[in-house]
């Protein structure tokens, strides 16, 4: 498939050891590490907020923190998890690391822009953390008007500025990926030889560049309206709060697909590797991610069925939402079919991925409950919605992110971690997750609204179950931190291809040299040419 490995060149990790050698590096692999460290930090800040929220909800009375604090906690949990962890998670770490490696390029098309993206991310993070330290924000991550413009007394503008800035980080990353995938593919790497992970990065990048500017300008409008007291979102000024919701969800619904599409890409890579068999129906998998990215732009109004939106618009958005579910369903069926007649082994990445499929299926199916107009009248803004999107974002995106980290960890660091600990963590996360969020479906159907600091006492048992699950989940998330760090020093040397996987990234040394490949690889075959399974 490619030229034979050269004498092992110097790994990218050894290209410099000073802090500055990292902060000034334009190597996509080092920037990926910068992102990995920063998003992990933000994940644990957001997780800390979630911990306090779940502790508060153990009792029906609002006795642990005040209502103001609680509102600020769920706002910071949402803002940080959405913009500073989930959206950048897979694209900025695994994507940054793997896109050039998988297509056989030396780097992204615009390496300095890539570094600038990271600095923008950090700058946005500083604004947001600054808003947190200065006293917090209590609007919810959705910044609904006129509450955010006229009624909240918290640091809305600073938080909005942070999100505005981090938006440009996303835009530049997406731009970089699109150009790289178009222009930097190795000879022979045709569009239909691209790994599905690359397809998912491409689809996510489309969303990054076309949706994020809308959010940026909308937040700008919020800031101006709040600061000057004139605007188009406040009915008291003659504006319309639903206009804000349209603009916000035009971005924020596709943003959900930015979280799940990369996860689908990761799952496809891992399943095919550990089933030792090509992905079932490769082309329809590739078209499915593109279809999700495009149709995903047409469904935002399903967040507004009970908002006072016209019922006709609601109908249109409802049917479009059913349509966007079809490519997702196809992907689930195709993953399952990929297992058929494979030679399946169950290393930690595979366990995470199988968990991902299950949880994503539940998350996706419950999304259809919510897309049904009459049912959404009951379920909207209840814990059913909270459970649904956590199944997608945490059960889906975070499971796949962890699976991907475990899968490519030997490539990124050159070391193997303890597979038994990792499998234990995967199982722990799966059970902890379900215990946390499944009771919330029931709470939602019972009618418990989201963002409630206190609640009627008959909901307590289910909330206690959920909080208990959250503590298991927390351990499940802390474990990988321990054994992965441990592996950096004590792990066995991985070698170039510990999983005997296909794909260009496995053909170079682990960790790869700064230039990725000794010589530009030439691709001559379709992806996932796993030969083991065929022929019995």
């Amino acid at each position, binding site marked *: 498939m490619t030229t034979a490995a050269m004498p092992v060149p110097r790994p990218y990790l050894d290209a410099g050891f000073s802090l500055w050698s990292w902060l000034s590096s334009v190597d996509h692999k080092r920037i990926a590490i910068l992102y990995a460290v920063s998003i992990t930090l933000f994940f644990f800040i957001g997780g800390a907020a979630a911990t306090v929220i779940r502790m508060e909800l153990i009792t029906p009375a609002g006795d642990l923190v005040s209502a103001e604090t609680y509102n600020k906690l769920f706002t910071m949990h949402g803002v940080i998890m959405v913009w500073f962890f989930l959206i950048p998670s897979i694209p900025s770490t695994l994507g940054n690391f793997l896109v050039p490696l998988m297509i056989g390029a030396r780097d992204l098309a615009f390496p300095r822009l890539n570094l600038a993206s990271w600095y923008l991310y950090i700058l946005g993070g500083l604004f947001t953390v600054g808003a947190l330290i200065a006293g917090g924000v209590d609007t919810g991550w959705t910044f609904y008007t006129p509450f955010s413009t006229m009624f909240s007394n918290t640091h809305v503008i600073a938080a909005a500025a942070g999100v505005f800035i981090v938006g440009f980080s996303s835009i530049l990353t997406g731009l970089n990926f699109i150009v790289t995938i178009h222009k930097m593919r190795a000879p022979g790497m045709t569009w239909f030889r691209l790994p599905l992970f690359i397809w998912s990065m491409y689809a996510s990048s*489309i969303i990054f560049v076309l949706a994020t500017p809308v959010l940026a300008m909308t937040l700008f409008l919020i800031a101006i309206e709040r600061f000057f007291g004139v605007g188009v979102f406040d009915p008291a000024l003659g504006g319309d709060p639903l206009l804000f919701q349209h603009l916000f969800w035009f971005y924020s619904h596709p943003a959900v697909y930015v979280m799940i599409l990369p996860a689908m890409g990761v799952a496809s890579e891992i399943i095919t590797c550990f089933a030792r068999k090509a992905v079932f129906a490769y082309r329809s998998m590739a078209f499915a991610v593109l279809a999700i990215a495009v149709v995903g732009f*047409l469904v*935002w*109004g399903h967040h507004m069925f009970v908002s006072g939106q*016209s019922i006709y*618009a609601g109908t*249109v958005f409802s049917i479009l939402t059913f349509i966007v579910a079809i490519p997702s369903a196809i992907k689930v069926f195709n993953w399952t079919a990929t297992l058929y007649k494979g030679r399946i082994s169950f290393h930690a990445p595979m366990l995470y991925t199988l968990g991902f499929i299950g949880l994503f299926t539940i998350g996706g199916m419950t999304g259809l409950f919510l897309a049904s107009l009459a049912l959404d009248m009951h379920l909207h803004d209840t814990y059913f919605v909270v459970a649904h999107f956590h199944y997608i974002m945490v059960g889906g995106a975070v499971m796949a992110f962890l699976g991907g980290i475990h899968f490519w960890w030997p490539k990124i660091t050159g070391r193997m971690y303890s597979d038994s600990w990792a499998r234990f963590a995967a199982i722990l996360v799966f059970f902890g997750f379900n215990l946390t969020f499944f009771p919330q479906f029931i709470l939602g159907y019972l009618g418990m609204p989201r963002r409630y600091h206190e609640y009627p006492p008959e909901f307590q048992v289910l909330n206690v179950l959920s909080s208990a699950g959250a503590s298991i989940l927390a351990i499940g998330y802390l474990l990988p931190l321990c054994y992965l760090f441990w592996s950096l020093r004590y792990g066995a040397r991985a070698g170039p291809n510990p999983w005997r996987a296909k794909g260009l990234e496995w053909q170079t040394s682990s960790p790869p040299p700064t230039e990725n490949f000794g010589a530009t690889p030439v691709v001559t075959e379709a992806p996932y040419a796993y030969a083991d399974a065929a022929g019995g």
Partner: protein
Amino acid sequence: MIRHPVAAAQTYVLVWIALLVLLALTLGSAYLPLGWLNGAINLAIAVAKALLVMFFFMHLRSSHYVLRIAASAGFFWLAILIGLSLSDFLAR
């Protein structure tokens, strides 16, 4: 080396003249009492001017189709934003 042929200077000047003519047309037509047609004419002329700028000054005329797709994507998605939002505001 240069893939894009360099257009003649006259082409640019002609396009510029066309743009100024369209500007005069849109300004003039705005003073005719045509009702809703005024707005439609204004928008049509604006689209024509934008196409002239993009096809000639920005070389879309001789660009690879991928660039044309990228250029139209922005407008297409803007149409989605405005169109589907109006499906609410006009039907309320």
